[in-house]
């Protein structure tokens, strides 16, 4: 199903323009589908995957009418979801989570009712080990093209030769600064904590989960982002507890605080950085010079997903390059799929926040699987929060 190969209907730029118009509601869906060629694409797909596109007519027998999707805050394009609903008759419920730990806890307790969720690279081997996600039947995801994905980001999906997830986006974790309020231009995690405890006291946010918050503190102290060394973690805990009275909040949903002006700096994922900067030019996203995280996210189906058919249909839909590009146009995060990147407008493809210079990323680390289950990191985070 490489439909963009046989007829690339319009230029990427034009596509994005039309998309913007469609999002704003100034053109109709029919117009949009016609102009962009998506209509033809769908017709082609319709013949290729009849069970999917004829879904609405026999929705109840084929893909059902519900899908529960667990993901991260500000990480989807409602237009995509609405279109999926329109095409298949499947309504989507979104649960936004603040951390991989929380997702894991829910899945471990069982009976989540989730059909699709979005794990981050370092968690997948844990999920496989705990028998919580299923191996994917790739023949049911024809839009997925393994070779199109950057292996650097896509590899964690494969465990012991079996594929458990399909890639979504990749990004970095740094911090965001409101440059109107913080003039000193912090560049490193050390600066981040200094400013937090100094000029920006009371206006700083850290994430509500261990990996990035503890990781940031570790980097500030000159240690590895992924350290599980008890002594190093002890120092990180001391730093965090010292900074705590100066924090505005401990939350992974930091956009509202940054937007309202209550918070001036926050640990931040790069796509959220672009979302904020788009609306408030004074926001600066910083990849810390002393380290940080590089990550990739995936779509996965839990073992006990109640709506398997809908889950596969959704995965397939979301792997469509056009859909990926449209997704990224809203949340900013770069796709791992070369086909989708080709469709992105230049402004996104060359955005320094989304596609940072390689040397900037030298110091970044992928989260290590060990951090997710490490008892000391979990306890350090919990003690910091209740301190």
């Amino acid at each position, binding site marked *: 199903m490489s439909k963009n190969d046989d007829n690339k209907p319009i230029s990427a730029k034009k596509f994005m323009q039309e998309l913007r118009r469609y999002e704003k509601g100034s053109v109709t869906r029919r117009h949009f589908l016609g102009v962009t060629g998506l209509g033809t694409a769908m017709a082609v797909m319709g013949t290729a995957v009849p069970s999917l596109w004829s879904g609405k007519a026999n929705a109840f027998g084929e893909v059902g009418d*519900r899908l529960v999707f667990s993901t991260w*805050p500000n990480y989807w394009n409602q237009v995509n979801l609405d279109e999926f609903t329109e095409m298949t008759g499947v309504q989507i*419920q*979104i*649960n936004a989570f603040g951390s991989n730990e929380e997702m894991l806890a829910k899945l471990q*307790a069982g*009976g*989540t009712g989730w059909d699709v969720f979005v794990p981050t690279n370092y968690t997948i081997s844990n999920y496989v080990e705990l028998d919580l996600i299923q191996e994917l039947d790739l023949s049911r995801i024809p839009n997925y093209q393994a070779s199109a994905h950057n292996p650097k980001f896509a590899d964690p999906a494969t465990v012991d030769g079996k594929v458990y997830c399909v890639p979504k986006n990749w990004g970095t974790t740094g911090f965001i600064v409101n440059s109107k309020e913080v003039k000193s231009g912090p560049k490193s995690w050390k600066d981040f904590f200094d400013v937090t405890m100094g000029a920006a006291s009371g206006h700083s946010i850290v994430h509500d989960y261990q990996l990035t918050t503890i990781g940031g503190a570790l980097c500030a102290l000159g240690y590895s982002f992924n350290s599980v060394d008890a002594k190093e973690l002890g120092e990180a805990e001391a730093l965090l507890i010292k900074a705590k009275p100066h924090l505005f909040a401990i939350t992974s949903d930091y956009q509202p605080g940054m937007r309202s002006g209550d918070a001036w700096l926050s640990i931040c994922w790069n796509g959220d950085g672009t979302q904020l900067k788009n609306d408030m030019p004074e926001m600066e996203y910083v990849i810390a010079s002393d380290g940080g995280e590089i990550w990739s996210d995936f779509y996965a189906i839990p073992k006990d997903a*109640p709506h398997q058919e809908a889950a596969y249909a959704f995965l397939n839909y979301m792997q469509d390059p056009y859909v990926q590009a449209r997704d990224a146009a809203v949340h900013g995060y770069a796709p791992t799929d070369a086909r989708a990147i080709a469709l992105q407008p230049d402004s996104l493809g060359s955005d320094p926040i989304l596609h940072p210079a390689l040397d900037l990323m030298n110091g970044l680390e992928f989260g290590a699987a060990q951090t997710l289950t490490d008892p000391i990191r979990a306890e350090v985070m919990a003690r910091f929060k209740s301190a």
Partner: protein
Amino acid sequence: MTMRIYAIAVFLFLYVPIGIIVLFSFNAGRHASELRGLSVQWYGKALSNAFVGDAFFTSLTIALSVAVLSSLMGTTAALALQRMKGKMRVLFDGLIYVSVMVPGIVIGIATLVALVTVFDFLNPLLAALWPEGIKPPKLSMGYASVIAAHTLFTMSLVIILVRARIAGMDRALIEASMDLYATPWRTFYQVTLPQIYPAILAGFLLSFTFSFDDFIISFFVAGANTTLPIYIFASIRRGITPEVNAIGTMVLAASLFLLMATQFLLRNKKNRGTSE
């Protein structure tokens, strides 16, 4: 005069946030924090959202079951306890006391941990015992666990309410009825029940309200089911839209309507009672 100003201030304190909720439910914009013109689109969205409907009916089913179960069991238990003395009575008093005292969050967690442990033990057993070819049942959290966990607290609430009512009841009436050789059932039906009825009704309504609004217990034991508060919690976390305000406003309007309807019916009944 000062008292009146104070009362007005407190009512303002109570109603300004509610006014804001209602106002923003008519927001034309996407964000719950900025008002951009007025529209009723979020009501349409909420009403046509299958998940909101699901959540509402889940909550309604659970709350009704809880209210019925608690008033039945609570009332029978209160009547039985009335006839009891000695150690058993002390034991039950203690249990009622503890079940009201234990915070909801602990009930939620304890139930989750206990049930998950039992299910992990029973499910393989069931699968092994089940005849081949038929899919074995799989025990999991759901309606039953939420209803059971809510009922623990609300049942004790009903017992307390009904018992207080019985304590204030006119014993002479019951004795008179017995003296007239009425059967115990008849005595209960014609003498006791009419007297404790208001307490049962109050218990029913309290149980319903508690269950319908509960978040923390359901959060732990609802399994794959989404109650309305769980849905709202999830909405707030994924960036609130005025849809949540619309849902809140509709629930408020519905309860106001029910309240006025009950009031109206009761008054009508009373009026008829006095005119006869």
